């Protein structure tokens, strides 16, 4: 019940974190249902179980900061403040979607809130994050960029090139590895000879740490101090957040490759349930407050879903828009 336990956050802020996590959880549940109803095309990569990572990390950012993430990025984009309805609309391929239906589930972006993009080629956004960092550095804006990626991503070349460049140029970037133990259907040990991925930062003389990725306040604290370092022009940091996805990799993957009991063990350590159970320890927070947040989140998602479903699809004749800013 000490100040420290709550990361210096007040009642509103704490309930806000809970609300965001619950909204993301319910949002993803709805996306799954929409996918099963064939209203989401192709594939979708959900993040139930991992909510504490984007919510904790993005809560540590300041106005003007930016974020990049992956195809499993709904949570991260929402954590930056992208509206629920326009995010859902994008996943439904609607004209009022954040990307006007051009991007879809794997490419949510909302530059107005600093959500610079969800990238669908593994590792491709880590170099991009260096670019946002370079711009901040050259223009002296003091802003910082957080970049989310998975455990499997630490094996691809772009990861290596980006961390090296960010370090040698002291770019203001926080690299957050969401280690959910699997890359698609492959357990990490089958593809990666080390299991403590935070140690890979040593190759770039980059400070790094591992945190409990299901503890929203722990993630927040780690990112906050990395952010401070970056803003002080001391360079990038890598954080490995240990977490777990409740669903399969994508689509209707039943995740049969999981060892028995693994999901159940992680369910015991669900980031939302844990946080919701802890919050009433706070002097100013009651169980009713938590219930009220649950309720408000559910209403918000339901309303967003209804609006998104009601919006029209893009007009085929507008398909030539947005390719070039200035077609010759």
């Amino acid at each position, binding site marked *: 019940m000490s100040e420290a336990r709550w990361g210096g956050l007040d009642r509103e802020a704490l309930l806000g974190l809970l609300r965001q996590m619950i909204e993301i959880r319910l949002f993803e549940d709805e996306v799954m249902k929409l996918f099963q109803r064939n209203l989401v*095309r192709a594939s979708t990569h959900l993040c139930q179980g991992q909510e504490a990572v984007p919510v904790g990390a993005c809560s540590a950012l300041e106005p003007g900061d930016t974020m990049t993430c992956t195809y499993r990025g709904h949570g991260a984009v929402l954590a930056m403040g992208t509206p629920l309805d326009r995010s859902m609309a994008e996943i439904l391929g609607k004209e009022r979607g954040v990307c006007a239906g051009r991007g879809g589930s794997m*490419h949510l972006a909302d530059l107005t809130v600093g959500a610079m993009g969800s990238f669908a*080629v593994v590792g491709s956004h880590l170099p991009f994050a260096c670019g946002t960092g370079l711009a901040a550095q050259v223009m002296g804006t003091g802003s910082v960029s957080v970049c989310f990626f998975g455990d499997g991503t630490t094996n691809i070349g772009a990861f290596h090139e980006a961390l090296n460049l960010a370090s040698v140029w002291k770019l203001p970037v926080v690299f957050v590895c969401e280690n959910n133990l699997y890359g*698609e259907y*492959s357990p990490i040990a089958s593809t990666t000879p080390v299991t403590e991925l935070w140690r890979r930062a040593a190759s770039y003389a980059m400070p790094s740490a591992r945190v409990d990725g299901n503890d929203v306040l722990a993630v927040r604290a780690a990112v906050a101090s990395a952010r401070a370092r970056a803003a002080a022009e001391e360079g990038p940091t890598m954080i490995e957040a240990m977490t777990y996805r409740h669903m399969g990799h994508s689509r209707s993957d039943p995740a049969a490759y999981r060892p028995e009991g693994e999901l159940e063990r992680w369910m015991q350590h669900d980031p939302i349930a844990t946080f919701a159970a802890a919050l009433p320890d706070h002097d100013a927070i009651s169980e009713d407050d938590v219930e009220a947040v649950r309720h408000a989140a559910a209403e918000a998602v339901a309303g967003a879903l209804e609006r998104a479903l009601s919006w029209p699809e893009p007009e085929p004749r507008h*398909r*030539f828009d947005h390719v070039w800013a200035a077609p010759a």
Partner: protein
Amino acid sequence: MSDAITYREAVIRALGDELEADERVVLIGEDVGAAGGVFKATEGLHARFGGVRVRDTPIAEQAIVGTVLGAAVSGLRPVGEIMFADFAGVCYDQIVNQMAKYRFQSGGQTTVPATLRMAGGGSLGFGAQHSQCVENWFLQTPGLKLCLPATPADAYTLLRAAIRDDDPVIVFEHKALYGIRGELRDDGLPIGAAEVVREGGDVTVVATQLMRHRAMEAAEQLAAEGVSCEVIDPRTIAPLDTATILTSVGHTGRLVCVQEAPAAGSWGQAVIATVAVAGFELLDAQPALIAADPIPVAYARTLEEATLPSVERIAAGIRSAIDA
């Protein structure tokens, strides 16, 4: 081989038959092993041939292609999978600069019996980075053979031929075709030979993969209108069987190419340019290219459907070619 099987099963069978026939054949790629591939196109092979010969890799396409190349010149006949064809972008150097040029640069010291498989194509809503037909990225690169199977029969025949070929071959599977059914028949067509899929006298229609099927539907419709289409599937675009196409244009006088990719720098333009240069006098009217719009593949159904050539657009395009 008389039962109809799916395109997916044809891929599995081709891989299985080659793994069976030649112990130098190995299969590597992301989740091709225990999981049987994200498109389930390697299902059962890991159980059948074991983890030494059917291996999961890290997410590292440069490593996959480089390993295939190195192994190919060291005694194996490896097959690498690049899951979505779009990811060829992250290992493009390995394919076009290393694999394609290795034999030439060495002055012919070795053969390079390497095969890559990758799943391309749109119409399913995978968005701009998971829907491309990337075969044209490789047209500029001498040293590669490029196969585009449209049917289970070709998926089987071309993939087996690719693995047995002593040069690097890329087999582009089309993800919207994995579920189609057809019979495996050995028509004896090698890599480099086009297939005349439908004979006709009014117009030569050249089409690959998903567009071959749509072109065939359009040809059916047009037949009812009294227009007789000769539909040719080149099957491989490097080498390109220009002789078969020129022969056909020689008796139809008209040429329409239908492809899923945009026009600029495509095999469709290659066919048209080749016929214009080498068979100008055979043409009674301007050729036509029915292609995707010059825009990325959008996620939204309305946009993607409008972007890719539909049966209607193909039929209309052939009609105007006939009327020209």
